[in-house]
């Protein structure tokens, strides 16, 4: 076990843990945002650069600071490491810059985007975005394509986190899409005209941090914050069958995996559960899903309101209410 300090809070974690995971152990506003890292997907992380943090002391043995900001999702902690996240002006500045970079080519079509309300990029822009864009040039545009009967690919919205590529590489038997071309013309695509056809491919919708991959069976049906999420399960020969049913009245409008507070799915579900079981009779209902209280999804529902944390990035003070975000 090693002791690390993140934003003046000490935590003890196992050796080899990344800074991000250590911060998640503390929870609250100490946790850097992560757009590309996904703990259950090996190799993910390091690409979006939103989780950059400052390492003020590398370790107890070597107290020098690290020369550059490091990606907390793929930098392992060391004994005596001191990490600054929200308390470092430099980190907040860098994160603002990254968000600006991610947004310059983003279409900002949130009003018509199915991901709105549960979009990591929205949350990030709310936290770190500038009031107005400094980008005046044309945005990069791709035609939108259907990959298969169930999945829509909006390349314009993609931030190239590679999560869906890792997912298909690791979860499905044969990956059929990937990152093609390079630089600012890179895109997620199948290259040839074909559909992604695999019984676990629907999970790309859950891992996508933005609205680039969306559920065609749910397309334009409703806004997520009008839906009531319910924990449900069923007997499924292919997957665990544990899912969340998003209800509009009596109607199941969509099925997703059960996401934790960092937006990561606990267990991946199969396409049959996700796309084809839309009847109430298909599922056993467990009860309402607990949702992060900051989420707009919770705004319309139950759960008493709590005072939010107030963060002052300039002075680095954090006024903590409490960490329970459910």
């Amino acid at each position: 076990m090693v002791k690390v300090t993140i934003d003046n809070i000490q935590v003890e974690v196992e050796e080899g843990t990344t800074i991000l995971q250590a911060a998640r152990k503390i929870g609250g506003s100490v946790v850097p945002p992560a757009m590309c890292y996904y703990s259950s997907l090996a190799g993910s992380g390091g690409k979006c650069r939103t989780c950059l943090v400052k390492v003020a002391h590398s370790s107890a043995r070597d107290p020098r600071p690290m020369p550059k900001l490091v990606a907390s999702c793929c930098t392992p902690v060391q004994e005596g490491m001191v990490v600054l996240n929200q308390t470092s002006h430099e980190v907040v500045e860098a994160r603002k810059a990254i968000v600006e970079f991610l947004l310059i080519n983003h279409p900002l079509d949130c009003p018509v985007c199915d991901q709105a309300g549960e979009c990591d990029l929205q949350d990030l822009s709310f936290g770190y975005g500038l009031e107005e864009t400094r980008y005046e040039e044309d945005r990069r545009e791709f035609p939108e394509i259907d990959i298969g009967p169930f999945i829509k690919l909006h390349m314009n919205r993609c931030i190239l986190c590679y999560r869906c590529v890792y997912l298909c590489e690791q979860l499905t038997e044969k990956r059929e899409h990937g990152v093609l071309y390079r630089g600012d013309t890179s895109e997620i695509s199948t290259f040839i005209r074909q559909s992604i056809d695999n019984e676990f491919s629907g999970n790309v919708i859950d891992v996508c941090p933005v609205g680039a991959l969306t559920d065609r069976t749910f397309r334009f049906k409703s806004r997520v914050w009008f839906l009531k999420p319910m924990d449900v399960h069923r007997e499924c020969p292919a997957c665990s069958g544990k899912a969340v049913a998003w209800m509009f009245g009596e109607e199941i409008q969509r099925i997703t995996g059960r996401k934790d507070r960092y937006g990561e799915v606990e267990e991946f579900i199969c396409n049959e559960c996700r796309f084809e079981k839309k009847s109430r009779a298909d599922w056993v209902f467990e009860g309402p899903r607990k949702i992060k209280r900051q989420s707009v999804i919770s705004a319309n529902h139950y759960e008493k309101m709590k005072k939010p944390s107030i963060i002052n990035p300039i002075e680095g003070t954090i006024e903590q209410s409490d960490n329970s975000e459910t």
Partner: protein
Amino acid sequence: MGKPVLLEHIRIPGIRQFGVYRSHGGYRPVEKALLEMSPTEVGQEVTRSGLRGRGGAGFPTGLKWSFLNRKSDKPRYLVCNADESEPGTFKDRYLMEHLPHRLVEGLIVSSYALGVNTCYIYIRGEFKYLVRILEHAIREAKENGFLGERILGTDFSLEIHLHPGAGAYICGEETALLESLEGKRGNPRIKPPYPAYKGLYDCPTVVNNVETLAAVGPIINMGGEAYAGLGKGKSTGTKLISACGHINRPGVYEIEMGLPVEEFIFSDEYCNGIRSGRHLKAVIPGGSSVPVLPADLILRTAKNEKRLLTYESLEEGGFDSGSMLGSGGFIVYDETACMVRNTLNLTRFYRHESCGQCSPCREGTGWMEKVLWRIEHGEGRWKDIDLLVNIARHIEGNTICPFGDAAAWPVASAIRHFREEFEYHVEYPDEVRVITHGNLVRETRFTGGHPVSGIRFR
């Protein structure tokens, strides 16, 4: 300077042939290392020589070798980085073209020191003719018992394989190169782990530049101390400088470290001054990625000391008034060069070559190019100049690999030293537009202006 070290026999006819090379003392370092020295001693000799990576970063080679994980039971690899694509740099190509055996010899000695039995030369896909030359050299070395099983009767065996790239500047970055060598997209890896622990096929790997490895032979021949006796301070030995741009004699020159920049540009032994009697305006001293310096700052530092061709002297003044030795791609500009157009050109290069893996570089390079394009084409605004500086600062240091820095520095330094030119483009958009929209771009649109550029020496 004194006797050349790397390019010693370059003028001898037929030196590409094994027989000729051998008769001029070729492969003597291999015999010396394998028969008279232990691998550790070879490594120590290289450490003693103070040799630093010639690919651009200038990291001490002996130290890099010492990081190689020797405890692992996996095979170890030596990879020669011959993916020379830095604009302004053509020294490795010259070396491989004229003295292929110098590289093969260096590879054998280095592999022996590192305990490596398989070595790959990752060569730029465009260098088709070099592949033929190197293949021939490797075959000759093998026929003469310097490669293959039990070299010179020792227990040491080595195979050298050539691996072509396919047109990607980013593959010059060592981890991107390894990815490419594994048959993948050239996306740089996230470090740590470093290649010394997890490199090619997750095995301990050393990646060195062609010039670095070629220098190992002469170091073993003359001894590390003698090599360290050349040069100045921590910049030991000799360096190949590839000079291009507006000079009378472009080409590859081997210089002893510590040669004054002024002498290099104006002496008839080297560049022989600026072409057509024009004036020196600016120099990018280490390949396009390093900051550009105006004439006064390239010849003398801000402290008014002579600027020398060493790692330290060129870095003198940091980013305010210094640059870097980098890969030794020495690009010289005379007063006809438009720095805005040049910066746009380089930024387009970086946009084109960005792998697109991490967001600051993927988005930032394209953004900078678009803003620069507007300024160059008379559509710029005053705030665009500060915007460019700001974008460059936001890319720098926030990316996975040093490519982000390399893309940011040319822009930041051009604006730092030639801000009036950017302002001129913004202030007189019509003038700029008229000339740029002509049929051919012959002469620059902006000459002079920098208070100290255009100083003429001699």
